[in-house]
């Protein structure tokens, strides 16, 4: 018999997990890039990796306090955005896509290679950087919560910080996008030459957008490593595509879309993996091994997203009216 309670409670835990928060924040950054400015950034995984490694290396190798480690990560991603943007933002949109996807891979390979093992820990990655963050935790030790949402003090601390950041940056994005600055940004998405002809420095606005969205990704990368270790294999191109999936699921040019999209994505993923694993165990799927079952969840998530894009292409929070004019 299948343990439905366990499947559902595991799925429910994903609603507020720090990983969900990290993906939501990274997707929010991508919403600024892709949804609002029309920049095709395929290197969000690279920005997240810079956050993760920037924080972990500063803490482990240089003994920086938490705030300084965060600043190092953010600073690294600003520089990364400038390096990506300066040559490509004057060109057509697709060049940015090519450069970002390649640059993110270059970063991952640099973090993986043995040459910098002393700093990066190469393929096995880094751990032991959480003490400073845990020391800031005001919650007294113990176990809190109810039902599936029962965690110790550290786990609650990560969740509170992670989701607070998501809320703050969602609000910031909302403020930005309702302002005249957001109007210029959305204008650039529609036709940058027209905006240029109206006297706006399009190049500078695109650069600002690339940096802001990248910093979101970097902070997301820091939340992402708090419940786990830093492992370079986590920052593959597929990470960027999962974030794109979340963004399109929620609605590309929306604020709530990336947040709710991330929740739905992770709850579904957890549900499918729990269900398939137990179904194989119970002998419902005799043609499948446990290992195969582990992969099946991504196929099912893929199918779910395909259905969503076919039947609700504007995403959950997207404006249906916008689609009427898409060629």
């Amino acid at each position: 018999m299948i343990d439905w309670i366990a499947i559902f409670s595991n799925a429910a835990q994903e609603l507020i997990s720090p990983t969900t928060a990290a993906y939501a924040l990274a997707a929010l950054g991508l919403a600024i890039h892709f949804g609002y400015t029309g920049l095709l950034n395929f290197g969000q995984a690279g920005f997240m990796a810079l956050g993760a490694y920037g924080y972990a290396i500063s803490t482990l190798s240089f003994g920086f306090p938490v705030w300084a480690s965060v600043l190092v990560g953010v600073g690294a991603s600003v520089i990364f955005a400038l390096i990506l943007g300066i040559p490509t933002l004057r060109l057509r949109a697709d060049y940015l896509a090519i450069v970002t996807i390649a640059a993110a891979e270059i970063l991952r390979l640099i973090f993986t290679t043995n040459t910098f093992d002393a700093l990066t820990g190469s393929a096995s990655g880094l751990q032991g950087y959480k003490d400073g963050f845990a020391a800031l935790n005001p919650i007294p030790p113990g176990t809190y919560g109810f039902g599936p949402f029962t965690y110790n003090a550290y786990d609650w601390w990560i969740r509170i910080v992670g989701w607070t950041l998501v809320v703050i940056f969602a609000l910031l994005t909302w403020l930005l996008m309702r302002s005249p600055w957001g109007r210029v940004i959305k204008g650039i998405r529609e036709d940058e030459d027209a905006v240029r002809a109206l006297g706006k420095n399009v190049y500078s606005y695109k650069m600002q957008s690339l940096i802001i969205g990248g910093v979101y990704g970097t902070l997301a990368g820091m939340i992402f490593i708090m419940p786990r270790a830093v492992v370079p294999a986590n920052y593959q191109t597929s990470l960027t595509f999962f974030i794109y999936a979340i963004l399109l699921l929620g609605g590309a040019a929306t604020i709530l879309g990336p947040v709710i999209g991330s929740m739905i994505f992770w709850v579904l993923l957890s549900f499918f993996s729990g269900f398939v694993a137990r179904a194989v165990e119970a002998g419902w799927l005799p043609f499948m091994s446990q290992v195969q079952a582990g992969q099946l969840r991504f196929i099912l998530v893929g199918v779910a997203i395909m259905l969503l894009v076919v039947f609700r292409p504007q995403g959950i929070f997207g404006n249906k009216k916008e689609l009427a004019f898409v060629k």
Partner: protein
Amino acid sequence: MSSDTTPTSKPVKTTGLHVGEPAPGVQKVDPILIADGVKRTFGGLTAVDVAHVEIPRGAITALIGPNGAGKTTFFNLLTGFDKPDEGKWEFDGRSLAHVPAYRVARMGLIRTFQLTKALGLLTVMDNMKLGAKGQSGENLFRSVLPFIWRKQEEEIDAKAVELLTRFKLDAKQEDYAASLSGGQRKLLEMARALMSDPTLVMLDEPMAGVNPALTQSLLDHILDLKAQGMTVLFVEHDMHMVRHIADWVIVMAEGKIVAEGDPHKVMQDQAVIDAYLGAHHDTDLGIDTEHVEVLKELIDDEQ
């Protein structure tokens, strides 16, 4: 105001714009834009090779010429959307060489495009507001503090409503620009350009794809710009329109200025006839109905 001009009235032409005999590159009494030796080649093709041209201030100047004459390329060069291989050109006494397009626009030289660039998924209102200059809320850091820009936003809003009313688009304010018809988009693009109070408005084929019902209203709006003290330079194929509203006509062919002058006289210029019909148009090569029609219409118009 456009409502004052009745469609049938003959627009008042500005005269006495030039010094001496009208000829290509003739000196103007008060030029707003001067181009000197501007040349642009694409590989082996010389698209624009303008020796000297002056655009008179406070008048409506038409830039005409057969297809491929380099009119739009010349527009792009003047507005910073393309860079010439050589030459210098100045607007209001300030050199425009190596000035990026957005700075040219800030100087007060605003252009529109041959293929209308309405920002589809922005509302008509947002399209308009984007046109306003010097908005403090367009700075990243000030944008998150609405109290800094709210007052300016209200002023821009009022101005946009006024312009939209003039262009009869006020009912469409909250609609996406993508939902407008082709002609309405032309109107919106022109109204948006006016948000920045330009001194020189450059219209690239304002009448292309506009239905006849809107043509008259567009014409009135262009005449209106002059009435408000703006200078207009426009590219157009429709000879009737050129004749109707232009004070001065510049004819381009194969990248060069071949003739200049008063709209009625310039059409009789041998260089213009050559440009449109070919220098050997007397030689019988068969029938070129299209161009003959154009000239016939022009001659009929004249009588």
